[in-house]
């Protein structure tokens, strides 16, 4: 008898609570586009923020509302983006893969240190102590703040304490760009393979005392580049990517190796180094 009472009481309670749950589910249900869940499932779950949204879910919501195009996601593969586009019936959108690029070639094998830095092993900390001790004011300090900032394991320091970016793993989330105290990293379309690998603003061969692969602002690249693809600005060549052509010619003309071609298989390649020549005429902005 006692058992029956207990069973009855518990059973009754179960039924009442279940009813409550059902009512709550019906009444409090939030109407949500079911496609958001599906699209989110198709996204890479990296929550990296490279698309400009706080994470994958908000991006999925934006996609479903057609405020954004799948191409904004830099982490997905091409098929992944097309799949989302097909599912939502929209364009893929600009989907040129971007990667982070480092504008410095001054590893410890080629660039000298003026003073020895001792202290916290972080670029941010070192740069606060009289710039960090590297001869070149603009150069990479090689303490790996970008490596720490990267969530995708895409950056590694090489034997010369210079970060190397793995193009396959890089999602262009921009964390390393923010982390670098010398502002040497920036995001670029992966197809732009000709690259100015220096940020030093000084002109003349004296800078080669500090770093063997520095740009001396000789201006040969600007003069010889096709279609005025390169112009000199503030003692540095600047590639005008509107006229970009996939050529290695300016790289071959560079006497110091400050211009590189980032070959997809062979990695960083430089031209045969000619003797450094100063051409004062070429230091001005426009090539003659």
């Amino acid at each position: 008898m006692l058992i029956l009472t207990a069973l009855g009481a518990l059973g009754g309670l179960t039924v009442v609570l279940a009813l409550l749950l059902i009512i709550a589910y019906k009444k409090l249900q939030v109407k949500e586009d079911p496609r958001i869940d599906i699209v989110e499932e198709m996204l890479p779950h990296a929550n990296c923020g490279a698309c400009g949204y706080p994470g994958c879910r908000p991006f999925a919501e934006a996609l479903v509302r057609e405020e954004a195009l799948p191409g904004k996601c830099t982490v997905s593969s091409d098929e992944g983006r097309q799949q989302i586009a097909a599912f939502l019936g929209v364009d893929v959108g600009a989907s040129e893969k971007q990667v982070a690029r480092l504008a410095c070639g001054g590893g410890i094998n080629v660039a000298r240190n003026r003073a020895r830095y001792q202290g916290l092993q972080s670029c941010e900390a070192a740069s606060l102590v009289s710039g960090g001790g590297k001869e070149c004011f603009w150069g990479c300090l090689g303490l790996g703040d970008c490596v720490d900032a990267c969530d995708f394991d895409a950056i590694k320091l090489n034997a010369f304490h210079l970060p190397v970016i793995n193009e396959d793993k890089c999602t262009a989330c921009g964390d390393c760009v923010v982390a670098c105290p010398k502002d040497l990293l920036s995001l670029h379309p992966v197809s732009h393979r000709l690259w100015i690998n220096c940020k030093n603003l000084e002109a003349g061969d004296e800078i080669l005392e500090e770093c063997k692969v520095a740009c001396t602002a000789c201006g040969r690249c600007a003069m010889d580049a096709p279609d005025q693809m390169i112009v000199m600005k503030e003692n540095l060549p600047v590639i005008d990517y509107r006229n970009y052509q996939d050529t290695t010619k300016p790289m071959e003309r560079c006497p110091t190796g400050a211009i590189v071609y980032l070959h997809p298989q062979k990695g960083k390649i430089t031209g045969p180094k000619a003797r450094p020549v100063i051409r004062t005429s070429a230091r001005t902005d426009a090539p003659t």
Partner: protein
Amino acid sequence: MGLFNTLPTFQRGIHPGDFKDLTRHLPIERMPFSAELTIPLSQHLGAPSKPRVKVGDTVQRGQLIAEPGGFVSIGQHAPVTGTVTAIEPRPHPTGRMVESIIIATDPFSPQTFYNEHPMDWEALSPRELISLIQHGGFVGLGGAAFPTHVKLSVPEGKHARFLIVNGVECEPYLTSDHRVMLEEYDDLFYGIRILQKILDVRQVYIGVENNKEDAIEVLRNHVPDDMACEVIALETKYPQGAEKMLIEAVLHREVPSGKLPIDVEVVVNNSGTITGIGHMFRFGQPLIERVVTVTGPGIKRPANVRVPIGTPLTELLNFCGGITDDTRQILFGGPMMGAPQARLDVPILKGTSGILCLTENEINVREEYPCIRCLRCVDVCPVGLNPSRLGALAKSRDYEHMLDFHVMDCVECGSCSYICPSNIPLVQRFRVAKGLLREQQARNKAS
């Protein structure tokens, strides 16, 4: 230090020893002009100055060569008569390249002084006086190089009741303010009168630590009869020269977190700065030179030197007999907050209070141990922070959480790093954290 010490001071702080005997008794000497001077357009906090001369121009000693580039900016003057040879980026003691005006000294010029300021200051309004100080190129000579006229411009609705003259010079080794107070008290009191007029204050306090007894004596003997000025001897303790600590020591007032001294009706200025202002209004000479203490075990002839702004560091070191072979660190400023230099071709700035040369023996690179939470840092932090906790947060890069522990109130005085038995680089961590947090705030504001 003592249980029964009755001299006023602030709470907590450290006693690192003052090391001032090297230069304490040496009169200020004048340094000859170098062949070339570099005047960086930003040697102060705030916007860079705007050059007013071109390459090739001839400039006269004391002539304005760059105008203030905004309200928080100052004028720059030619420290020598000579020719402008270049306006280009040059190495700067902060480790950056900074746009600078390069002047080649005219070796045949008598270096007479070019006077462009009116002398009759009593007829001028406070606003005009402030503008003169701005164009005279004055910054805090204690080290931070914050433009003086900004401090003197009291915002609408606020009023200053006290002027505190900061003659503390709490950084070990440095004696430039000390020597200036001893030798140029006339200019100091003259400057105080001008500041009194600008700020409309009557009561003046001069805070001096009791390790400068001769200066206290001299100042007390020379206070003008009609000036309500009290020279206050303070217990020697670091960092008493920090503005907020000095206000606490002299007036027992606390400046609320995130506020300025003017919010407690106080204006604090460095004694050297006020002396310079007094000198300008007496003789018309803007800030084109300053007294620098060149000291430390690594320098052959320690001295207090009056140096033209823009003199290369190398020249100054050579003037003082050069550095010894075992010198390993050369600092701009004192040993607690100074900045080490990587190169010797940087110029002396308006904010350079001392050059300190340290040898192998003084270098303190020690093994770091885990924090054992011994609380010594808490006992010394003048701002009452918990450096132990902040250090742990910084180590795990939990920067945002550090805001809850008031990291932004840190004055980077270095007391916690000094006292830490585990040799943890606390201040360096806080400096990095503050920099990153400020960047982040700027980014958040922008987006």
